[in-house]
Each structure stands twice: as structure tokens, then as C-alpha cells.
């Protein structure tokens, strides 16, 4: 029995359900009991970049740093166990026939580094005063799709279904009152057609299609939040340990993040703790344990990788931060555009 995988799936389903519930209750009179703000407070990429671009110490940063702290201990648990977009991508991925095509070239290091470039671009933009990470942030992307596409589509379809039943069979009695009750409650989301809904939906379909080609391609190569978490997860306490490896390579072929290298060694920052490899291993000697356990990791990390290294990325961050540091609070911000003849306000 794949106990850990089952646990992960339950966790993913629960968090996805909670996510949809929170968004569904963001309608008048704002019931639901959970503030939708928490969704975005728990997203460090969003919170930190917003704080940097606005030059503000946002209170929500506390939650963001809590998540980062948790990642220091557990690794990228968010990506594998919580992220709503990750769950949907996994669901798409389950439609994919395993190893249908040889796409091992996609597992290479360069592909994984693309997401750091995105993270870097978004960070630079944040330093310059633009919070642009919302374009690609997975929580925001999922929230967009749920609130602009899923909820309107579901309420519209349900509403049309009820109207058809009522009109077709003349059910203007108790059934109509039941429908009215639903309209006053759970179906009461006003059906609005958003101008950007199509763009959002196509964007979502592209993400889904990417995961049909290669498992979690979005998470591997593009996700800026994943990039941030993977930088932190390098230092995580929880580690994958292979006590005995016969070199069969099953775990490497099946890994949804392409995180496993030869000889049981793995890319710590890429692992989303999906726990598949624990059960793939024919020797049964793969496990996840905290640092300081008896058996040490088998091999040292491979040196000499090409493309942008972690070190160069951190240098890029630090140097860009310093180069713009002189303009930390730009004077341009204090200038305002006034209509002709306007008087400056007091104070």
C-alpha cells in the first residue's frame, strides 16, 4: 500500500477543495469564514515581490516567511502537497501514458534553469517598482482560472439546467422555490462574463497541455514560486536517502520533476516530495528522512553544470539589488500629476 502517496493525494484534494471553497465564498455577503487574503499571504514570491516593489513592510510577510521556514525544514512540500495548480497539473499528467515518448532530453539542467531566469526578471522588475510576478505565480494563476472560468461556467451550466427543467416540465411549484433558494445561496454567484476569461482559459490550457507532454513541465521549467522554493529547499532538513541502489533507474524514469540523477543521487531543489520513488524502488531501500540520520547520502553532487548556476543567479540578484540600491525610494514617486490650476493639498 502506497501510504505516503495516498496521504499526498488526500492533502492535494483537500487543499484544492479549500482553495475553490475560499474563492467561491468571495461573493456578497463574504461568508465562508476564511479570508481569501490568506491564499496570497502564504505565497512568498507574491508577498516578497509586492513588498519590494511597493517598498512596504507588509504584515502578510510573516506568513510568507513562515512558509519559507517550513520549506527549510521540509523542502518543496508546497509544490507537491498543497499548490492548487500543481494538483491540477498532476491530474492532467495522470492522463499521460508513462514514458510514452523518449523526452529524456527535457530532463536536462538547462530546462530547469529557465524558471530562475523568470524569477530573476520578476525580481528585477520588483526592484524597479513593478510587481509582475502575478502573471506567472501559480496561486494567482489558479485563482484566476477558478474565479474567471470555473465558477462562472459551473454556475451558468447549473442555472441553465434548472431553467430548462422548470420550463420544460412546468415545475413552477416547490421545485422552483428550491431553485430560488439555491440562487439566494450557493448558486448566487452573479454570472458575469469577464472580458479576459478567454485569455485566462487559454493560458491554463497551455499549462495543462505542457504537463501532457512532460510531467509537471510547468513546475520544472517555468514556475517562479517553484524557483524560489527550490532555492530554499536546497538547504532543507528532509532528504531523500537511498540505502541500497541496484542502478535500475526506475525512479529516475518515473520522477515527475526529473529530479533524480544517476546512481540514486538527486537534485534536492527539484524534489516536490511526491513520494513515488519510495514505492518505485525495487530494493525498497529508498526513504525520506531528516538530516543526521545514520546512512549518509551516496554521492557528492555532480560538478561542472552549464548554463546559469545557482551561484551566478545569487550574484545576479545581489548585484542588481546593489546597483539599484541608490534609488531605493525613487524621487519620481513623490511627484504627482495635477490638472491645470489645481492647488496643492495641505500637509
Amino acid at each position, binding site marked *: 500500500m502506497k501510504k505516503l502517496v495516498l496521504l499526498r493525494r488526500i492533502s492535494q484534494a483537500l487543499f484544492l477543495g479549500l482553495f475553490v471553497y475560499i474563492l467561491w465564498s468571495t461573493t456578497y455577503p463574504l461568508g465562508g469564514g476564511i479570508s481569501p487574503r490568506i491564499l496570497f499571504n502564504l505565497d512568498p514570491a507574491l508577498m516578497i515581490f509586492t513588498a519590494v516593489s511597493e517598498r512596504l513592510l507588509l504584515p502578510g510577510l510573516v506568513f510568507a516567511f513562515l512558509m519559507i521556514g517550513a520549506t527549510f525544514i521540509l523542502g518543496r512540500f508546497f509544490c507537491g502537497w498543497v499548490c492548487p495548480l500543481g494538483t491540477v497539473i498532476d491530474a492532467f499528467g495522470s492522463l499521460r501514458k508513462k514514458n510514452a515518448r523518449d523526452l529524456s532530453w527535457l530532463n536536462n539542467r538547462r530546462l530547469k534553469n529557465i524558471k530562475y531566469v523568470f524569477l530573476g526578471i520578476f525580481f528585477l522588475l520588483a526592484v524597479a517598482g513593478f510587481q509582475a510576478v502575478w502573471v506567472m505565480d501559480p496561486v494567482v494563476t489558479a485563482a484566476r482560472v477558478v474565479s474567471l472560468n470555473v465558477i462562472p461556467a459551473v454556475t451558468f451550466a447549473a442555472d441553465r439546467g434548472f431553467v430548462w427543467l422548470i*420550463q*420544460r416540465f412546468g415545475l413552477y411549484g416547490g421545485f422552483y422555490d428550491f431553485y*430560488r433558494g439555491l440562487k439566494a445561496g450557493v448558486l448566487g454567484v452573479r454570472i458575469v462574463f469577464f472580458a479576459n476569461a478567454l485569455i485566462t482559459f487559454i493560458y491554463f490550457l497551455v499549462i495543462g497541455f505542457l504537463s501532457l507532454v512532460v510531467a509537471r513541465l510547468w513546475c520544472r521549467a517555468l514556475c517562479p514560486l517553484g524557483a524560489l522554493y527550490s532555492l530554499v529547499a536546497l538547504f532543507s532538513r528532509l532528504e531523500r536517502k537511498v540505502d541500497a541502489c541496484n542502478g535500475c533507474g526506475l525512479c529516475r524514469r518515473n520522477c515527475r520533476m526529473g529530479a533524480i540523477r544517476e546512481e540514486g543521487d538527486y537534485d534536492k531543489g527539484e524534489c516536490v516530495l511526491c513520494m513515488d520513488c519510495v514505492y518505485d524502488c525495487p530494493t525498497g531501500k529508498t526513504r525520506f528522512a531528516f538530516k543526521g540520520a545514520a546512512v549518509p547520502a551516496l554521492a557528492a553532487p555532480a560538478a561542472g553544470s552549464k548554463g546559469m548556476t545557482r551561484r551566478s543567479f545569487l550574484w545576479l540578484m545581489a548585484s542588481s539589488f546593489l546597483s539599484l540600491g541608490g534609488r531605493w525610494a525613487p524621487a519620481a514617486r513623490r511627484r504627482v500629476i495635477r490638472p491645470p490650476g489645481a492647488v496643492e493639498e495641505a500637509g
Partner: protein
Amino acid sequence: MEKFLYNLETFLKTQMNRKGFLKVCCAVLLAFITGNQLLKAAFAKSEDSSGRPKKGLKGLHDIVAVKGGDPYQNTVKAVEQMGGIGRFVKKGDVVVVKPNMAWDRTPRQAANTDPMVVAALVELCYKAGAKRVNVFDIPCNEDRPVYEHSGIAAAAKEKGAFVYFADHWNVVKAKFSYNSSMEGWPVLRDAVVCDTFINVPVLKHHGYTKLTLSMKNLMGVCSGKRGLIHLDIGTKLVDMTDFINPDLTVIDATRVLLRNGPSGGNESDVQAFNTVIAATDPTLADVYACSLVKIDPAEIPYLKAAMARGVGRSDLTQADVLEVQA
């Protein structure tokens, strides 16, 4: 999945010729037309209606105006002086109480009917043996906040009324025996298919028609593009009044918005008149309400149109008016 990818690849690699392109275009067009027709067939069309029958019910007086501190008691007393609710509501009737519930405003801001007036009428109807009392309106703001903040939904529900949001698909098409620009207008079926219709407007200022009164309140049962009603509003509202034919009109002048209507919002624009007016003739009720705020009825487009066409009575000197202090 493998097959799908293969098919996709083949599709993308195949070059399309003119014939193929035309074929695809025709297929898409055909699918669109049939789909549209199927959808049209699936959803029933709204039937025609020539409006509610004219019952010609009369009260003991033409107009009863009750002045007093409590709007609930004022309403009860006004209906009582008209000869009791039993004249209008029979046992087993389905009653519509149509308040002015259009704006996201509190009762103190006086942009909607006072909830206590509505509650009193609902209770009276049930006492007279009504099977069901429906309370609804098509608001100008978002449904939910309007129903909640106006206080009407809660007050009416407490008395057992069915309060619900109006469905724009559940309409009839208005038919008139004369030429009317409201011909074919979608009107809420529930407002037409009922035994008794009680119109409960609020007296308030209106930026375009000077006053909102009982005829103006009937815009709330009209679906469709309501903005168009404002073109030649007088004639259209008189036609609408003729179509709906309210059995009883109860005008709430408890708190009157005197400026910045119809939405208002500023409590300093509100003056307490503490009056409830009951009448069977909508025109006469509206003319009497005008006299309260000292505005010439001829300045109000729909009353002007009603007078010109001789719909209802408009001469207060000839009317039997009973003014009571509660």
C-alpha cells in the same frame, strides 16, 4: 494520449487546400446554426399576456391617508379604513406585494419602501387567508445587498412572505389592445399571474420624473432593457399601469427623500412625513402624494400622460379623501 498527440501532429502537418478550407468553414457554420437552433428549441419562449384582469375593486373611500409615528400601525389603519384587506384578498389567493426595493440603501436613507409597511401588508394578507405572498423587485443595484440593506427581505420573511430574486427568464410578453411602445415588453410572470397585486411604492424625489410614485414603481416588474423605458416615460408607465392594474396602492410617505433622488443616500435630504396613503386608483393615489410634497401633478410626465388620456381620476376636489391621525 499517444494517439491524440499523433493525430494532432498529422493534422498540423497536413496542408489544407481550398476545398478543404471551405469544407471546414461550412461544417463550423452548420454546427453553429444547428447548435443555436437546438438551444432555442430547448428553452421555452415566453408566452404572450394581455395583463391582469380589471377587477375594479373599490374601498370605502377613494383615498385614506394615515399620519402617525409608527409606519406599521399607519398601514394597518389605512387598510382598515379602506374597508379591510378582505375586500382585496380572498382566501387561497396568491398575492404580490411589490415594494420599491431598488437601491442599496438603509431604511433611514429612505430610497426604498419602509420595511414595516411591507411587513404590515404581508401580515394582513395572510390574516385574510392568502395562500402565498410574494415579495420581489428588480433592483437597480446588485440583488443581494439591496434585499438585505433595505431591511425589506428580513421584515417580510419574518411575516412568512416568499422573498426571492426576480428571474429574468421567467417573463411574459406584454400585449396591448391599443398601440403601445411597451408592446412585447418582457414583464415578470409572477407579477402578472397572481390573484392580487398590491403596489407599495415609496414617495421620493426623482431626478428625471420629479417624483417616484406608484406608476414609476411598476418599472420594477419590467425585465429587458429598462433604460429604454425612460424615452417617453409618461406614456409607457401609464401603459404599464394599465397592464398590471394594481388592486391596491399603498404609498409609503413615512420618510421622504426630497432631494437627490432616486438613489439618495444623504440623510439630510430626508424629511419625516410619517404618512401612509392607501387608494385603489393609482392615478388618484399619485396625485394625492404630489399634494403632500406640494408639486403640481402636471409636471410629472406619467401623471400628465394619465390625465391627458383620462386614465384614472386626477381631481382631488371630487375625491373622497379621509385623513386620519393614528
